[in-house]
């Protein structure tokens, strides 16, 4: 049985999000179905940031005065709460500016391992080694690995996807071999909505001695994630997709890996000693946080995590599943609408990408926008995946905890309007 959404009060939740009460395009109600790109922020998050700036703002880990103490406490408390949210230890959480930086951090640390000491040997990659990704990756979990291969001479390989939007695991044994240095895979596709069997993949990758990086940009915001259960080595996600501020993201990794991984960005606060000719580096997580960090944003993200925890991620997930099921059913009933991705809610989150026969996605999106419905159009930073399905572009509705069934109804009405307008109805 699906988790219950009893007591989940979507109206009360919506009341916390100021932007949802504005109108667009001459007085239309805003129907925000683009949370896959970025989520909206509740008052609680905005208040936490502002309170930090108005009361406690100072550079962290650098000062001895009272404000510096308070700011450092706020920052480290944020780290602890975010770590707890994903079942991790405090010192395993590194703040980055977004998922993209978190993934690049690992990719650059791996190329830096070439000129680092012997303790970094397990991060080294070169000719003959392979990095394995999938065809459903967001560009953020594809291009950094292409670049790592270009820098080091390693080879990029990938899992394909099936017609119905799942990872094609039939060649897993050929892909994951003794040559595999790292498997990078998304936990939830931002286009298909597919939730991948990451724990199983991680076990298979570990069996051949590979490291495993999970792109959790679309999973941590939407479902309960426990890094221990997942069995991954690295996990990356963004604050802005989970009710938090822009400008903050997270790289999680195991303590023993962070302890030997070479630094990426270098500068203040990540050093142990500095001389003109050479430097040594601090212990993690500081080693990976060069410069004055996004303190207020970390504080805001911790408030977002508190908000999500207050609702309960099981219930958030159940709520989105209910919306997704309803959307799949209603969209499926519109003639000429083709859904890209699984057509049921099994192992699936709330990103619903679709094509409308005879109308380009841009034009579908335009009519929806004119009706107050905000969806994403294009390739959603997953261009190879779109090519795989023979689509240059699609429209994507993505749901979050503040959406309700009337939002789905508005989406359906907007698509019908587009079909009429472009004469394909």
């Amino acid at each position: 049985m699906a988790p219950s959404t009893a007591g989940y009060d979507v109206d009360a939740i919506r009341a916390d999000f100021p932007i949802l009460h504005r109108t667009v395009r001459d007085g239309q109600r805003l129907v925000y179905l683009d949370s896959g790109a970025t989520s909206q922020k509740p008052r609680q998050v905005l208040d936490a940031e502002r309170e930090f700036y108005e009361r406690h703002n100072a550079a962290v880990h650098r000062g001895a005065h009272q404000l510096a103490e308070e700011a450092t406490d706020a920052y480290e408390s944020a780290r602890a709460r975010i770590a707890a949210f994903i079942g991790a230890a405090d010192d395993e959480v590194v703040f980055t500016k977004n998922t993209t930086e978190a993934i690049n951090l690992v990719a650059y640390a791996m190329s830096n391992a070439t000129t680092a000491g012997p303790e970094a040997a397990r991060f080294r990659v070169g000719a003959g080694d392979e990095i394995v990704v999938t065809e459903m990756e967001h560009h953020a979990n594809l291009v950094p690995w292409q670049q790592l291969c270009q820098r080091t001479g390693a080879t990029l390989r990938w899992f394909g996807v099936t017609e119905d939007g799942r990872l094609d695991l039939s060649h897993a044994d050929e892909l994951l071999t003794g040559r595999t240095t790292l498997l990078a895979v998304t936990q939830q596709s931002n286009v298909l909505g597919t939730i991948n069997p990451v724990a199983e993949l991680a076990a298979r990758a570990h069996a051949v001695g590979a490291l495993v990086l999970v792109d959790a940009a679309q999973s941590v915001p939407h479902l309960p994630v426990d890094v221990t259960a997942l069995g991954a080595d690295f996990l990356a996600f963004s604050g802005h997709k989970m009710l938090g501020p822009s400008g903050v993201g997270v790289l999680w990794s195991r303590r023993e890996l962070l302890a030997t991984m070479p630094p990426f960005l270098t500068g203040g606060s990540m050093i142990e000693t500095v001389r003109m000719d050479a430097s040594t580096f601090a212990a993690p997580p500081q080693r990976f946080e060069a410069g004055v960090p996004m303190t207020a944003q970390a504080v805001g993200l911790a408030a977002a995590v508190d908000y999500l925890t207050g609702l309960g991620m099981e219930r958030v997930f159940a709520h989105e599943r209910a919306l997704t099921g309803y959307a799949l059913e209603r969209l499926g009933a519109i003639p000429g609408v083709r859904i890209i991705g699984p057509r049921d809610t099994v192992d699936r989150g709330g990103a619903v990408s679709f094509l409308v026969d005879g109308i380009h996605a841009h034009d579908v999106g335009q009519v929806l926008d004119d009706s107050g419905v905000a969806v994403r159009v294009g390739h959603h930073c997953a261009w190879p995946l779109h090519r795989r399905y023979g689509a240059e572009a699609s429209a994507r509705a993505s749901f979050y905890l503040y959406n309700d069934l009337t939002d789905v109804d508005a989406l359906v009405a907007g698509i019908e309007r587009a079909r009429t307008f472009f004469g394909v109805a």
Partner: protein
Amino acid sequence: MRLDSLYQEIILDHYRNPHGRGLREPYDAEAHHVNPTCGDEVTLRVRLDGDVVVDVSYEGMGCSISQASTSVMHDLVVGRTVAQASTLQEEFLHLMHSRGEGEPDEDVLEDAVAFAGVSKYPARVKCALLGWMAWKDATAQAVAGGAG
């Protein structure tokens, strides 16, 4: 109504029945342009005779705005000198960046005035410019090639 002012009949007509579509021989230069956010693409060839544009042929995939705009451009530039066509291209660019405030001259831009409404939607401006930018690129190559 907002949608009608964006999707004027002229645009929808060109979208349904594009003029000059298809890739033709002979040609002096070819350009391939993409819109990185949506994946729309166009491949476009230019044929000059002296300084006159004698053919523009193209193929591609894209939304109504990009398809129609390329079709309208075809009609506007073919038969004009490169200098005249370049002036038109600049006029059109100017209109597209006018944020709905432009007052296009129909005697100059002809069917392209229908795109005035597009300029209110910044995300669609790139669609309307896709073909024009490919034309500019291909023409510059053709001119350079002819000179070289």
